[in-house]
């Protein structure tokens, strides 16, 4: 079923052009189609619902403003948005103080629902990873996030970033090496055997 519950024959760029011509229905369809993706990306990177909402709203506002000048065919709307969200999240992460977790206080959850301690550990993992991702060059960060968070294949990433599959492989490998270096010494603190 299409994400927005309507026909998907119109791509995002065409809807954006219609929006810029004053078509209110295009605004509704783009909102329904894009906001869940934008919000999910921000929430995954930031781990904070209120901040994720702010980033999603700001990213979409930038899309509405640029709509009249959008150059169809030069970039995919989703890729452009992905970069905007990634950069907005990075800005926030760089200003955010690091959180730490006391593993001694963490016990295994008794049932399916995560215990408060497990949630703390998950938060610490997500924060540590997000902080490390924020230190990567933009294209490396996008390649790693698309690969591991979105489950995109290398050819899909190549298409979205407008680069070759070989370049994607190189970016991902370099990105992961940089992440490993940034997270060096934190494996045990995050509950892994490093």
């Amino acid at each position, binding site marked *: 079923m299409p994400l927005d519950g309507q026909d998907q024959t119109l791509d995002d760029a065409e809807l954006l052009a219609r929006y810029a011509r004053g*078509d209110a229905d295009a605004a*509704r369809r783009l909102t329904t189609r894009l906001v869940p993706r934008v919000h999910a990306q921000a929430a*995954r990177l930031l781990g904070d619902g209120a901040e994720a909402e702010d980033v*999603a*709203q700001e990213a979409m506002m930038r899309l509405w403003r640029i709509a009249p000048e959008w150059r169809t065919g030069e970039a995919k709307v989703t890729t452009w948005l992905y970069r905007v969200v990634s950069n907005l999240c990075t800005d926030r992460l760089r200003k955010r103080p690091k959180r730490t977790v006391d593993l001694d206080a963490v016990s295994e959850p008794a049932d399916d629902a995560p215990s408060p301690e497990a949630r703390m550990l998950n938060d610490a993992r997500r924060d*540590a990873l997000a902080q490390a991702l924020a230190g990567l060059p933009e294209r490396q960060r996008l390649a790693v996030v698309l690969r*591991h968070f979105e489950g995109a294949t290398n050819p899909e990433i190549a298409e979205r970033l407008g680069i070759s599959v070989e370049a994607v492989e190189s970016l991902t490998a370099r990105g992961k090496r940089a992440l*490993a270096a940034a997270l060096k010494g934190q494996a045990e603190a995050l509950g892994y055997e490093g």
Partner: protein
Amino acid sequence: MHADDDKEMWLDKLLDDVGDAPAADTPADLMARVLEDALAAQPAPGAVMATPVSLWRQMLEGLGGWMSVGGLVAATATGFAIGLGALGGEPSDLYWMTGLDMFYDTDIGLTAYGWDLEEG
């Protein structure tokens, strides 16, 4: 196994754990706020589409438009002239290169760097 592989194993696990976390539901009020923004920022139906701006035009607009650029050129020329005037009392290579020194020398009859005076 290579040490780097060990590092990447726990890193892969970390990426999987964070990536597998369920996506947050999109709050309905966020959707409403975004749509409200969209409609507020939307050009009126039938409005003339803005043509994509060129790099030159973006730079020009960044400087404040043609009027500002005209003022910038005038200010630059004035500053250059003032600078040359300031050099009058203390010659430099730049000053000699302009040829302005020739007027000065002609007025007081000093040519050939004063050698004519030494020769009587």
